[in-house]
């Protein structure tokens, strides 16, 4: 019976919410945060260390002479700084993140716990091999899973992301051609390919020849055959492709490529659609990278780290780079150098120091073990089912240029349904931000106008998909109804409005510059 009257427990009759200009610039839970250079001090530290023991310096004449200008924060300040910054990010853990080609699926926390076991986190890549048997065993187990899923002969684990895997696979192809005494100069790349494909080929000195897409969004074997010649080293083909379609003539393409003495590089960024459904090795692929940070859910971390193991066919297996794992009488052995290689082992070199992204291997294997063969197949099927469901429920309002065929794990729309509304793909994406969604991939692939590539993944419930679909429908109808301001002004509710990218590029400010002392500034 105490004090039930003391405090109002009902809001006063509110006016329609209008943005309030606050004194601080903060908006409730959304708190602005300065740079460490503005709030830190060089003499402050968040780490207590004992004084260094007195000892004769062995730095010779190399001791540092000038201050570095590094700001420090105490622990409470640092925790607040980074927690505040974190709250300015969207994340899978907050909501659906339909970035096509990027596979933003749930990141199981078990995997984070496993990678932090001291037996994985606190081992050095160069401590005696007799003391890291479990690590080598883990690499062998991961290899076994990857080879079983892909039906390939060998795997190079060390590439550090998808693009690094592309380098690895294309280097193996280059080495295999050299071993045949050939140096071919052309790599065929479909127009719909991710930018890393042509960039990789060019980095290795190849001339990139584009393969046009046919009307249904897939590669026409006739177009490939017309481009094949004794000078073609390889084709780089993404399957499922970046339009979200399975390349239905892939076997015929692979056969034609092989008949011309060339190799078939498969970009496996979209492998997540077909795990447990079809094996790339059965389709004629010679090399394919697998993005563990997509298909096997190792977290993206705001731009990495990734991990891009490359599976190889029998023809390319001998050229796998160092290090690799060899089975000696059933025991996995880590081969790190050219010393004592068997005759059939002719690695093309080395892609990175040490052994690759062990932390990602641990997470990916934990993911695989948790799913099992049944769960992995289910994940692929659910991903494909979800994308087709989104497509089915949006097809009356959005134009799917290749909608005649079922899509795989992602659905591609163009901007033709927005024609005449004054709303662009970019505007539409920014309006999604105000509705609490991360936009889909925009303007990629380049083969359709104003592309919107939506990948819902298998991690969404039906209710979540339905709400997402309803939101896109509401926005599409608002655009058609002429509510263009909603789009042109968006986002209005994010930590920042649209940012001036032109200004950023014209006069680049890429690092903090200390303000000039007042006297100098006045001059």
């Amino acid at each position: 019976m105490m004090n039930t009257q003391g405090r109002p427990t009902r809001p006063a009759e509110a006016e329609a919410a209008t943005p309030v200009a606050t004194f601080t610039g903060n908006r409730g839970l959304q708190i602005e945060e300065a740079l460490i250079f503005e709030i830190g001090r060089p003499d402050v530290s968040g780490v207590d260390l004992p004084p260094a023991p007195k000892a004769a310096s062995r730095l010779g004449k190399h001791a540092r002479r000038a201050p570095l200008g590094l700001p420090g924060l105490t622990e409470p300040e640092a925790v607040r700084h980074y927690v505040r910054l974190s709250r300015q990010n969207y994340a899978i853990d907050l909501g659906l993140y339909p970035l096509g080609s990027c596979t933003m699926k749930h990141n199981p926390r078990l995997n984070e716990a496993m990678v932090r076991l001291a037996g994985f986190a606190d081992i050095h890549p160069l401590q005696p091999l007799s003391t890291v048997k479990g690590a080598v065993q883990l690499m062998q187990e991961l290899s076994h899973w990857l080879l079983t899923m892909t039906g390939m002969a060998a795997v190079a684990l060390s590439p550090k992301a998808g693009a690094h895997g592309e380098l690895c696979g294309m280097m193996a192809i280059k080495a295999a051609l050299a071993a045949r005494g050939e140096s071919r100069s052309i790599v065929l790349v479909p127009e719909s390919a991710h930018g890393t494909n042509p960039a990789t080929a060019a980095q290795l000195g190849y001339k990139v020849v584009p393969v046009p897409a046919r009307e249904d969004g897939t590669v026409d074997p006739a177009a490939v055959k017309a481009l094949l010649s004794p000078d073609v080293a390889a084709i780089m083909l993404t399957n499922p492709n970046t339009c979200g379609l399975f390349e239905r003539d892939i076997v015929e393409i692979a056969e034609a490529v092989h008949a011309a003495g060339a190799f078939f590089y498969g970009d496996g960024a979209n492998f997540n659609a077909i795990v447990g459904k079809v094996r790339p090795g059965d389709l004629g692929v010679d090399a394919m990278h697998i993005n563990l940070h997509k298909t096997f859910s190792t977290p993206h971390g705001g731009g990495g780290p990734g991990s891009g193991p490359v599976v190889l066919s029998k023809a390319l297996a001998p050229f796998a780079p160092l290090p690799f794992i060899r089975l000696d009488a059933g025991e996995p052995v880590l081969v790190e150098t050219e010393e004592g290689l068997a005759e059939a082992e002719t690695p093309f070199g080395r892609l990175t120091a040490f052994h690759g992204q062990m932390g990602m291997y641990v997470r990916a294997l934990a993911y695989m073990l948790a799913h099992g063969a049944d769960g992995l197949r289910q994940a692929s099927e659910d991903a494909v089912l979800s994308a087709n469901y989104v497509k089915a429920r949006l097809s009356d309002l959005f134009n799917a240029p290749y909608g005649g065929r079922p899509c795989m794990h992602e659905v591609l729309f163009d901007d033709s349904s927005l024609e005449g509304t004054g709303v662009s793909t970019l505007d539409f994406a920014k309006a999604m931000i105000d509705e609490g969604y991360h936009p889909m991939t925009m303007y990629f692939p380049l083969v359709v106008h104003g592309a919107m590539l939506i990948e819902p993944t298998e991690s969404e419930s039906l209710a979540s998909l339905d709400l997402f679909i309803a939101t896109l429908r509401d926005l599409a109808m608002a655009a058609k109804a002429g509510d263009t301001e909603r789009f042109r002004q968006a986002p209005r509710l994010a930590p920042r409005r649209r940012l001036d990218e032109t200004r950023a590029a014209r006069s680049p400010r890429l690092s903090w510059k200390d303000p000039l002392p007042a006297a100098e500034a006045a001059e």
Partner: protein
Amino acid sequence: MRYHPLTDHDRAHMRATIGVGAVDQLFSDVPRDKLLSGLLDLPTTKSELEVERLMGRMAARNVAAGSVPFFVGAGAYRHHVPASVDHLIQRSEFLTSYTPYQPEIAQGTLQVLFEFQSQVGRLTGMEVANAGMYDGSTGCGEAVLMAHRLTRRNKAVLSGTLHPQYRAVVETLGRMAGDTVEALPPDPEATEDILARIDGQTACVVVQSPSVYGHLIDLAPIAEKAHAVGALLVAVVTEVVALGAIEPPGAQGADIVVGEGQSLGNPLGFGGPYVGLFATREKFIRQLPGRLCGETVDADGKRGFVLTLSTREQHIRRDKATSNICTSSGLCALAFSIHATLLGEAGLTRLAAINHASAAATADALAAVPGVKVLNDTFFNEFTVRLPGDAAAIVEKLAAKGIIAGVPMSRLEPGRPELADLLLVAATETTTDDDRAAFAAALAEVL
């Protein structure tokens, strides 16, 4: 299973909406004879507890560095990482976000990258740094390619001070890209004359300091010679904590600095994931590989950050890009940046001094063992000793006694008998006096 929110009922409803009877109808573009009918020949789904058991068993077969006296370095170093670092990088909004393609809802990641770039610039003494590479070794490879673009020459000269696995990465990339890479022989005693190898065809000379053998190298004369003939100096740092104590490469004339950032914020983790540091001069930014974050303003005039100068990158320039890199090392860069912020200038300076004293005490303890010779006049937290016997065999004997002694040079440079008796020994703030004493005593026993 626990990660799949759709129920069979949901799935049936979705199939009906789409208008297919069976999910395999959605896979109708897969050639019929290639579509798998059964399950893959792999185990089926497991509970958390079962996965923990299996993974735990594998982890238990490894000897964790923290459980023994531990002296291994050579490009990856065991440091104490404050607990708040690992807590903060596991914030969902950092851990489970993508590359910041939509800057309005990625200011957290972008501001961190801007701060990271600024910290790396100051540590290395350079004007600009990018948002990170995969690791130090791949960054080294990219630096050589960048030098070739800048000088329009294609010969790189690699010093014998360079980590042999970095050398292998550069050689592989160079060979595959049609460039010439000249590597000098290993330089365990810091006696090489690299100046004589720099000429008018040289695009860049690559020197590591502290060297893989631990020596501190005077970069200034090398930079001077390189610049005199129109070549660039690429300086490599594999232990960034050293920059708390020694002159930054930028102050000695380096044109590109590449570094391994693992030491700050990131666990040993058997070699990865780590983060590569990549810094250069302002005038070279259009040739930088990788992501760059820049400051700008939003439509309301508020300061904000975006990825910028992307006309260098693969998603815009395709086969004309400066590099094919896309996903790099965001979360490791975050860990690096948080640890650097916690340390600050005062903390880093002290941490470096403690590391140096720890290594000096270790060198003194080992030098007192009969038959052991320390090769270095100068070093930071790692040095080379010559043992009276095969270093790899001695390391194995010490491992059997529960001491992880260092890296036998033969592990990195096999087939060079003249290096077989060399051992690289590193010590950090985590090394105790007991560790040192145990190492010296055990070494005396096995020799």
